[in-house]
């Protein structure tokens, strides 16, 4: 059909536009980070030597600094270094050497990034799985206890600081259930390379951070869903659907819930903000 072709074309144009913007954003982000660090006084070579000799009374000479610089390739101009880094990222998906730990950045980030991602994604899925159905259900209750209980739990989740929840859960696990809570993976997997067994072990440990991350998000989403749902229930198309003879959960899901869920869906992108915020929070569960 003609309209179908038009829709398809519009979709591909939209997709292409998005990819272009994404590429530009990534370029800008990496350039800004590179540039900002460049603007800071000193470079990695100075810092490494300082760390090596600090407290030993050894005087660091300029030649030594230059030597390390040349060794690491830091003597070349900024744009050359950035260009080379960018080229390797784009062609080989290689983020270059990580100076401080003397491995590659890929190895350094590697599974840590994966774990973080899985945790944030897990918390998000967890919060949707609870918030959306419970929000719908609470909104359709006339009044009373259900609303009260859900609101209480929600406000607890919103009001309690995440670290407090984390500490309580850790204590419960350590002292009541006698579980190993010292890491996201069991002792035997520490420092091991990534493997499926290690990943499964991680999932077994992940529920504490999931709960901590997920509780407040869930509470927020739930209250949003409940409010939106109450709003939608009063709309005329709901009455019209009921007047056609549709009722119960099929009606709720087809009409008000689908309308109510849209503002939540449109902000999925924001749900990944813990990815940028949480990594900077203190390491309570690592």
């Amino acid at each position, binding site marked *: 059909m003609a309209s179908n072709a038009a829709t398809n074309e519009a979709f591909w144009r939209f997709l292409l536009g998005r990819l272009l913007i994404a590429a530009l954003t990534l370029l800008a982000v990496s350039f800004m980070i590179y540039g900002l660090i460049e603007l800071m006084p000193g470079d990695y070579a100075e810092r490494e030597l300082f760390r090596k000799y600090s407290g030993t009374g050894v005087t660091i000479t300029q030649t030594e600094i230059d030597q390390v610089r040349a060794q690491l390739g830091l003597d070349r101009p900024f744009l050359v270094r950035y260009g080379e880094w960018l080229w390797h990222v784009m062609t080989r998906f290689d983020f270059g050497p990580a100076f401080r730990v003397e491995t590659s950045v890929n190895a350094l980030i590697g599974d840590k990034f994966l774990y973080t991602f899985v945790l944030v994604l897990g918390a998000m899925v967890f919060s949707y799985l609870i918030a959306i159905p419970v929000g719908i259900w609470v909104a359709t209750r*006339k009044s009373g206890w259900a609303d009260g209980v859900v609101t209480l739990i929600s406000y607890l989740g919103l009001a309690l600081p995440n670290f407090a929840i984390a500490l309580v859960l850790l204590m419960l696990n350590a002292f009541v259930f006698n579980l190993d809570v010292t890491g996201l993976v069991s002792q035997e997997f520490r420092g091991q390379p990534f493997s499926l067994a290690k990943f499964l072990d991680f999932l077994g440990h992940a529920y504490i951070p999931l709960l901590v991350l997920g509780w407040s998000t869930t509470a927020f989403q739930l209250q949003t869903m409940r409010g939106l749902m109450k709003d939608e229930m*009063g*709309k*005329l*198309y709901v*009455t*019209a*659907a*009921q*007047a*056609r*003879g*549709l*009722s*119960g959960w099929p009606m709720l899901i*087809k*009409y008000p819930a*689908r*309308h109510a869920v849209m503002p939540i869906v449109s902000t999925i992108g924001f749900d990944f903000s813990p990815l940028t915020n949480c990594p900077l929070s203190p390491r309570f569960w690592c």
Partner: protein
Amino acid sequence: MAEDSAVLRVSNLSISFSTDEGLVTAVDDLSFGLEPGKTLGIVGESGSGKSVSTKSLMQLLPSNAAIAPNSSILYQTKQGKYIDIAKLDRRSKTLDQIRGGEIAMIFQEPSAAFSPLYTIGNQMIEGIRLHRNVSRAQARQQAIDMLERVGMTNPELRIDQYAFQLSGGMRQRAMIASALVMRPAVLIADEPTTALDVTIQAQILDLLAELQNEFGMAILFISHDLAVISQIADDVLVMYLGRAMETGPVRTIIRDPQHPYTQGLIKAIPRIDRLDQPLLPIPGDIPSPLERPQGCVFHPRCPHAPDRLRCRTDVPVAAETDPHHRAACHLLDEKVLEEVHR
């Protein structure tokens, strides 16, 4: 009496809402009957309870509304069974069968009555398949046929469009099609022409009359506009503050209104042959539902009430002035008395 022939007989219907400010009476002791193939027009200002009373016929009221226990909404199904809708549980299967299948409804704003997330066809087919055991393809064909019947051009194309892609008149036609495709015995039309241009309004009224001839359903037509009601209705029910003021055949009501409120409504209709005369609105505003007047609910705005104590203390009982013509007003007793004295 007409009791036996009526497809819908409402008796002593009272509806109240529990709000934060207290219990609000929206409909008070309303009774009327709806004959098959006939149109009953309910007229009244906004807040007169006309919309609430018709929504209650399908139990579509919000959850804070309650129908009084002595109310009855007796409906005769297509199979000839009698069901008191007022006594049905909100979740009963019977209610779902009546909604759409037996009694259908069209609304003032078709743009809001269709969800923008689904095509017109999707929402029509949903209705058809809830009430008829047909395949999706059959239901789709029935929907297309009905859209064609209500005067939609290109029904095969329109069925896959969304309500927001249609014009106001086309949307209302689609709404009518989606209600009539289930061949209901009763069609409730809640101000179906209010949101439309006058020319489109006339088209829709003609269409409804035409479809009534063809399908023989009874229509309950709600409007604040007595002029519109007089075009389509056989009988009229005039409502004020949830009470029936006057009821009777449309000609009698228009030509010989007995109730001061009806008289006021008729005087307030702008007339093209009397452009030089000022409009005569009914003085005052409809009171807040929280402050229901004692006695006759219309007395604060009634020109005859100031010199009659009864109007402020006693609720008037509906009296028959002509066959089938009833009005609830104390003035009528006086007229009767005068005649007796003579």
